């Protein structure tokens, strides 16, 4: 065990993945500089320019080429520099990456990983704070994964590389350095498709993922002081969604608060809430609360705090569901 932050854990996972000759990394500034967030630091030096490939500013080119490589039997890991810069590759992802298996009835496949730093909270310029996981979650044929701890980041990334299907791998920018934790020395994977009950509780289930786990954890701690015992559930995999774990928890607690920083309308929280209602309607003691970003552009630094769900907003939502 070593204590690592999330960027370091991801770096270790990439390094480990590169032990497989089929793995190549592609992205803007990932080699020479080690990436904007230094997640690929040192990998060019260690694995060489055929494995860690600095590319032109060309997201469709990156994803399209990675797709071709994957079809040819490699296991590419493409990086979008920020989620807000993944959209030029959107057509490649929705029209080809997610579909070649079905289009060819398993004859050709695209086992690639697209790493996407996402989320607000560092006061960055416009387009650097996006949280549009719902867009990718709505595309059949993709898997969408989002860790909230260094341990899961490592294990989920290696699972994504092993996965026979394309994976959108979201990395919460705010947690790159701030999330620290133990990571085993021996390689391991965390299975895609499994949510995790991070803290058991009996009064209410707080369901969150990625960057918002930080607020969710803080809220649970704060609520404990008001004698509210919140169960904390880390979604970890958005697609395929682990409905079972969510239902097991919510049917027990009877109350749920879903948290994400993406805009509210048509965000993934709507899907989670809808599923809870569909399957646990008669166990619910109160309507599910969604604590989300607003239907606005993420504000720039000076007003960002008005947008990103705060611990206070999560706590208030829990209090609301507890009222009934």
């Amino acid at each position, binding site marked *: 065990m070593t204590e690592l932050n999330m960027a370091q854990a991801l770096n270790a996972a990439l390094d480990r993945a590169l032990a497989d000759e089929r793995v190549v990394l592609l992205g803007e500034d990932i080699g020479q500089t080690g990436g904007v967030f230094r997640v690929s630091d040192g990998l060019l030096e260690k694995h060489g320019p*055929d494995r860690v490939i600095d590319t032109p500013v*060309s997201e469709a080119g990156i994803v*399209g*080429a*990675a797709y*071709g490589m994957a*079809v040819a039997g*490699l296991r590419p890991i493409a990086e979008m520099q920020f989620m807000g810069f993944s959209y030029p590759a959107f057509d490649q992802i929705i029209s080809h990456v997610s579909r070649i298996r*079905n289009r*060819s009835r398993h004859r050709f496949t695209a086992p690639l990983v697209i790493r996407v730093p996402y989320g607000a909270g560092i006061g960055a310029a416009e387009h650097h704070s996006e949280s549009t996981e719902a867009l990718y979650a709505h595309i059949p044929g993709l898997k969408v994964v989002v860790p909230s701890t260094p341990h899961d980041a490592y294990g989920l990334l290696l699972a994504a590389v092993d996965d026979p299907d394309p994976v959108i791998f979201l990395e919460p920018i705010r947690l790159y350095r701030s999330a620290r934790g133990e990571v085993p020395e021996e390689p391991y994977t965390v299975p895609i498709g499994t949510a995790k009950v991070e803290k058991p509780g009996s009064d209410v289930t707080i369901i969150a993922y990625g960057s918002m786990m930080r607020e969710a954890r803080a809220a649970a701690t704060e609520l404990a002081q008001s004698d509210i015992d919140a169960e904390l559930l880390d979604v970890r995999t958005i697609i395929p969604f682990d409905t079972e774990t969510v239902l097991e928890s919510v049917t027990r607690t009877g109350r749920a608060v879903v948290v994400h920083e993406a805009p509210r309308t048509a965000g993934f929280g709507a899907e989670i809430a809808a599923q809870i209602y569909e399957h646990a309607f008669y166990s619910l003691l109160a309507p599910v609360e969604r604590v989300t970003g607003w239907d606005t552009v993420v504000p720039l630094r000076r007003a960002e705090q008005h947008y990103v769900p705060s611990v206070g907003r999560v706590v208030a939502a829990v209090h609301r569901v507890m009222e009934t």
Partner: protein
Amino acid sequence: MTEMLQILDVDGTLVGESPVDDSVTRGLYEAMVTARIFDHKATALQRQGRLATYAPYEGQEAAQIGAVAMLEPGDWLVASYRDGAAMQSRGYPWTQLLLTRTGDERGGRPPAGVNVLPPSITVGAHMVHAVGLAWAESLKGTDAVAMTMFGDGATSEGDFHEAMNFAGVYQTPTIFVCQNNGWAISMPRARQTASETIAQKADGYGMPGELVDGNDVLAMYDAAARAVDRARRGEGPTLIEAVTHRIRGHTTADDDGRYRSPEETARWAERDPLERVRLYLDAAGVWSRKWQEEIESAATAAIEAAVEEAESLEPFTAEEIFDAMYAEVPPPLAIQRRRAAEAGLA
């Protein structure tokens, strides 16, 4: 204006040096005849309602068959909805081509060992796939190349640019074959880009570009063979502009009378890609009416068999539409799969 490579003139005389001997030319001719028979058959099937819309390639057989004839089994072909002739001559079965057009996903599944991707329906996105495929082969240390075929219209898409740029930067063994048939549906070539030729666009990506008479199968063979050789030797990508003409509408649903003149059709009729080869072979004494009938009837038989095979396939069940979304159907999808089956029964 750049000169256009021509080897076989419209009257069947050689105006350059043939890259192949006559037995190969006979093979190219046979492939073109077969492809045209398929094209006519598919058009007829569509009229009978047995296929959904179909995109005929009649007139573009030389561009397609000449371009791919020298590819090796390990090489990749990434082509578009109009490239059935090229695809089939690389091993993609007529049956699969028909299946796609009947509206059956199994059309996208060529046999193992055939390195031909299902036809691209989106315009523009697929060229960069050929860059990735070629690149992967280089990284794996094979000498395989990837060829991609697309239309003049496709060069207007941003992804064409990104594909060309990547190929140039990484010197991937990719051959870009643009069939400039003069139209992107109703948009004439001159209004798609202010560039005089498409071939010259290569220059902006540091790769050679060549303008070729796309209705001259020998010129196409020659240009493509040189490009493939260069790529295989590690000397990077090439763009080939094949100047050609689609004889029919954009698809069977298109009324080309709305945007082009009968004169255009007439002008191109004399440039037909098949007839000039027939004249050449005839003059060389290696064509006969009897042989023509033989290859035609062999083609017809093979194509009829393909039609039968394609039409004999049972359509997908409701469950089957879920079965190739992932390697394994994930739990939430398995639930939907069950519900879909139940809905079907309801």
